[in-house]
């Protein structure tokens, strides 16, 4: 099992959710986050006082999948979230040791 963490542009969130649904992913967790990368921030000007806004809003998607779906899911997110411009985000894939469905107590692949 793998945990896929994707940081994407907020307005791409719906596209990513649809793409994941299409390949059979049954649930994701989404968080509104801020961060910086190669896409620089912007400046805001209030009555002559200039503030550089370094941290830009992004959507963080966490999805746990079985081994069979990892490549498909990564590909789906990459396609759906791509605009070709700096700031499209990143995908991190990490090993997942255990998953438990709280309601039933199921574990492992059955809990996904």
């Amino acid at each position, binding site marked *: 099992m793998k945990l896929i963490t994707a940081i994407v542009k907020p307005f791409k969130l719906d596209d990513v959710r649809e793409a994941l649904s299409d390949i059979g992913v049954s649930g994701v967790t989404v968080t509104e986050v801020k961060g910086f990368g190669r896409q620089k921030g912007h400046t805001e000007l209030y*009555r*002559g006082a200039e503030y550089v806004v370094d941290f830009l809003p992004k959507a963080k998607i966490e999805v746990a999948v079985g081994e069979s779906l990892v490549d498909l899911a990564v590909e789906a997110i990459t396609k759906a979230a791509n605009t070709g411009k700096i700031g499209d985000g990143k995908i991190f894939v990490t090993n997942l040791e255990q998953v438990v469905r709280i309601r039933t107590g199921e574990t492992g692949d059955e809990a996904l």
Partner: protein
Amino acid sequence: MKQLLSTFILFTLLSFAGFSYAEPDAAVQTTTLATPAEPAAVAIPAATPAEVAAPVAAPTPTVNKGDTAWVMISTVLVILMVIPGLALFYGGMVRAKNMLSVLMQVFVIFSMMAILWAVYGYSVAFTEGNAFFGGLGKMFLSGITPDSMAATFSKGVYIPEYIYVAFQLTFAAITPALIIGAFAERVKFSAILLFMLLWFTFAYLPMAHMVWYWAGPDAYTDAAAAETAGATAGFLFQKGALDFAGGTVVHINAGIAGLVGCLVVGKRIGYKKESLAPHSVTMTMIGASLLWVGWFGFNVGSNLEANGLAALVFVNTLLATAAATLAWVAAEWLMRGKPSMLGGASGAIAGLVAITPACGWSGPMGAVFLGLVAGAVCFWSVTSLKSMLGYDDSLDAFGVHGIGGMIGALGTAVVASPALGGTGVWDYVGNTVAEYNMLAQLTSQAWGVGMAVIWSGAVAFVAFKVVDMLIGLRVTEDVEREGLDVSEHGETAYHL
């Protein structure tokens, strides 16, 4: 975009030049406008030939229901300016952690000044005393009854004194509230209240008395009577300084106190290092709009009568504000690349401030001119002057109210000129528009500005020092970091 903007400005200037050709007509119109305000003088034919030189016998004082209704509505409108208008305008510009502190300061200052006004403020400002302070005869509003009358600007026309008390109360309440913008986000609530008590007593009341106290038009029957009556008026009234709705009394007065305040208190932690950006320009826009609406009560209500001159004041207030909004936004667009909502809101307030002293004497195109100047100069003062001088006037109480007030007070001498479409100054002895001398008027206006700057500056400095010694002005660094809402008031503005 810049090109488009330049074309627009050029067009505006050209049309403005076109209007100025038409202004001699406007002068004639405004002169005739003033005449209906003097019906009592015409209505008394009983003068004997010996009295022809002084044709105005004492008219019977009457209260006009229309005037009364208008001043009542105006009073409510000025309350709308303070709470919620000013509170939201300022509140939106601070960080979220200080939102309630600003709302609370405005709300409580308003209430406190209202009570002080009834206890001794009205008496000290608006009864006869010396040229600087009035008397204590109407403390606790004693002696005022539903039948008491207050003079307007027309002979024989009065309004109930109670509503005059209430109307002037709102002015006394908004002025101290304006000051807090200069040192928002870092001063103790208790220190602010104590300062306001001192400043109201020793700066607001004498300024109001100096500028606005006079015996009323009925006392000006002939040259000798005018001299006697004139000698009882306030210091700046005697100097001939014109201030229709409070350019010196309210705006320069508060602006200077604010400047002194932010110099004495010092800068906010993180000034020019951390982001101190406004937490909600939306709130600021709502506040500015409420101020704009309420200002019709402030300016037009100051006419005390619902007549033709009131209508002129209305139009002036509308046009100057619109012009200043455009001027600020245009200046910002050209100099900084983007027109901002905060700039639009700030420009509107700058225009309102500048037209305040002039609104009863300016013609409509004079108001547009004053607005354009105020919008551009106040933009410069908050973006460049403040940085150059390095003080932290958090919400630009000085940059907008102080500077805008000075532009308005001095500009009044220009736009009041009948040759430039103004109404000129009414001569209550001759019952006609007096000969207008712009240079002499400018000198009178300079007296007003100078007096407000020195008096308010000195009182504010001493009052801040006294408060600092007694309870300390500034909150601790921890409190300032945590925000005044939680630490001073025990609550949070937003639970999201």
